[in-house]
């Protein structure tokens, strides 16, 4: 990994090389236990579901562009205002 460049090679440190190998091959030592399953569920199910809910629930509900000072951004409120004005 180190050495073979234009200059004399880097003075390698076995501890750093071992740490590098450990970091690069984390997936090879990955095991499913209570902690990792919890993290996996959080990252693959809970967070994506939460972000999808937010993306879908609020899609098309806000209209900030061209709003006047007295107007609300939230479209549902806009409909009530319009109905009240009428």
């Amino acid at each position, binding site marked *: 990994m180190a050495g073979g460049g234009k200059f004399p090679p880097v003075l390698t440190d076995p501890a750093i090389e071992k740490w590098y190998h450990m970091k690069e091959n984390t997936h090879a030592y990955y095991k499913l236990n209570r902690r990792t399953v919890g993290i996996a569920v959080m990252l693959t199910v809970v967070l*994506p579901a939460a*972000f999808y809910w937010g993306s*879908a629930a609020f*899609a098309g509900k806000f209209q900030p562009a061209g709003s006047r000072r007295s107007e609300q951004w939230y479209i549902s409120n806009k409909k009530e205002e319009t109905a009240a004005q009428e």
Partner: protein
Amino acid sequence: MLVILLMIPALSMITIWLYCQLAKEVVFTALAFSLINLVHTLLIMHYFDPSTAAFQFQTLGILGIDGISLWLIWLVNMLMPIVILSSWKAVNTLIKPFILLLLFISFWSIAVFMVLDLLLFYISFEGVLIPMFFLIGFYGGRNRKIHAGYQFFLYTLFGSLLLFMALIVLYIETGTTDYQVLLTIPISQNRQYFLWLAFFISLAIKIPCIPFHVWLPEAHTESPTAGSVILAAILLKLGSYGFIRFSIPLFPDASTYFTPLVCTMCILGIIYSSVACLAQIDMKKIIAYSSIGHMNTATIALFTNDYHGLSAGVYFLISHGLISSALFLLVGVLYDRYHTRTIKYYRGLVMIMPIFTVLFLLFTFANIAVPGTSGFISEFLTFLGAMNLNPFVAISASVAIVLAPAYALWFFHRVSYGSFTTYLPTIYQDITAKELHLLLPLLFFTFLFGIYPQIIFEPLHMSCLSLLH
């Protein structure tokens, strides 16, 4: 006129293959042809009419460019001389096939951004895979290069098979793959959903969206500097270009329907890739994960169905192409000297490489969207467009504004400052004239586009307006 853009790389490949033997001959011939192509691109830009969204310089009914493809073609042709020069004396064995592979990638990349036929787009989209596979698998520097090459190839190929399937369904339904004809043919909503999903999986692998991103960090770390530059600056743009050219205009109902899905995947991509950056110890992997985050931000911009968002998305592609190329070149400067990319071995580089540190700092600023750089314009307008679409998406994606400086500045600080490292040998050399001249154009354009973004937005204006649905 557009055919010449393709003929020049083809001619250069033939010339080099038949007549050039020495490394110097190969590199200078390739450089000359790529500079001719760049000049030709500038001529096209001069004669381009920004007041229309129609495809211009149409040739044979299958080639044409608009404001979106114009700057992407410029990006390819601007980067090719830089990539070719960066390989000179960096690649010691079999330079001729290396340069031929680069030119082959250049040919297909330019073709992708010019073709007006879906089948030709598919062929060009696939065409870059094979030379890139050899670039990574043969010219890579480490043990896992073949694994990385196969991973890159198979991931993209799998996605492309779905794209091909969608292409066949589209052809059976409409009887044509001509893009301009397809724009006029209405496609039923249910069919749109299926076709959009098939397109999406293929293009999402290229962007790359999480969870299809696994191939990118491996491909970047295993490939040579030139390969990384091409991968980050050009190949990643193919996916976003596919979205803006084909998915969104051909399947507008499906694009609107699936926008929450795209936004979700992109937000996850931004957050997970940024956090992954913080945990990396290989310099190239940091920039690779950073690229994932940025490309996902650009994808959110493309799906905002907002003028600011759409133009920001395309602008983002150009900006990211410049900044990530420069960062990879800077890492390549260090790797050429010391042949290691582990961050732990570097510290206090400002003492021995001050000019390198200054350039590194400037491009880090551009990477984290500091005002004055092109990164700021792209991120600002992206979040403006996202806010108009859905404030929840904008606020979630804006986590990148916090995380990007976290990993980028930490990376810069660890490498540049502190007491000088004890691991590097006592022979030092700051950035050479050649390396500086490779980076200066990228620096110039990064700040030019950051100070005067209208230069990119003007040709984009009509094309982006025509994409709104």
